[in-house]
């Protein structure tokens, strides 16, 4: 099965339905799609917005490399990742990953893998804008995210 890969880095919002339709449209061998959306949280009201900075060029390239790995590891019909940058308020979507496959296990695992690697390897950085007007900090990388990515190295995942 050849896997369609689409990566986009953009300021604008994305449309999950049309991104999913892009992978399944016209095909009759896709039995499962998994669409993951990551959204900005207000952290109990303390966060007014996130400012996402990225490394243009490398962001697309790195997510593309992660997607190629997923396509080698699982039987996929398609894989899409859309990541936004700029100022994003709580409730707004930040990232979308869609995986399409014949079987649900591959779709779930590929989407989860792509998100775990994207979190730790895609060149994006978040800076807080606080609700109380105090100086926002750069969000620190989480150990839990490194661990989530590491689990894919210790299992064959199939």
């Amino acid at each position, binding site marked *: 099965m050849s896997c369609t890969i689409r990566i986009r880095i953009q300021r604008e919002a994305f449309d999950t339905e049309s991104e999913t339709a892009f992978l399944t449209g016209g095909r009759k061998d896709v039995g499962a799609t998994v669409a993951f959306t990551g959204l900005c949280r207000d952290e109990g009201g303390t966060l007014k917005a996130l400012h996402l900075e990225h490394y243009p060029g490398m962001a697309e390239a790195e997510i593309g490399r992660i997607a190629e790995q997923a396509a080698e590891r699982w039987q996929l019909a398609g894989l899409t990742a859309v990541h936004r940058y700029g100022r994003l308020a709580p409730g707004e979507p930040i990232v979308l990953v869609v995986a399409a496959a014949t079987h649900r296990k591959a779709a779930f695992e590929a989407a989860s893998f792509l998100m775990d690697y994207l979190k730790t390897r*895609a060149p*994006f950085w978040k800076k807080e804008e606080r609700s109380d007007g105090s100086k926002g900090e750069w*969000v620190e990388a989480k150990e839990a995210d490194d661990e989530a990515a590491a689990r894919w190295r210790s299992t064959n995942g199939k």
Partner: protein
Amino acid sequence: MSLDLRYFAWVRERIGHAEETVEPPAEIATVGELIAWLSARDEGYAAAFAVPEVIRAARDQEHVEHDAPIEGAREIAFFPPMTGG
């Protein structure tokens, strides 16, 4: 050798600019040596690279370790651990 450098997030903020072109001396062979050489420039660079272990680097838009050679590179980028997604 002329080399384009790019800085992101708090590395960029501490250094005070997002990109520049440098001519490191010939004895600077690795990414780690480049970090040490840059750190000596001024307080901003020193602050950005104060804890070199946390600094991530990319050579021509691919992640590399600090022992990676810089020879032949067009662009080296420095940044904190990623927090996308």
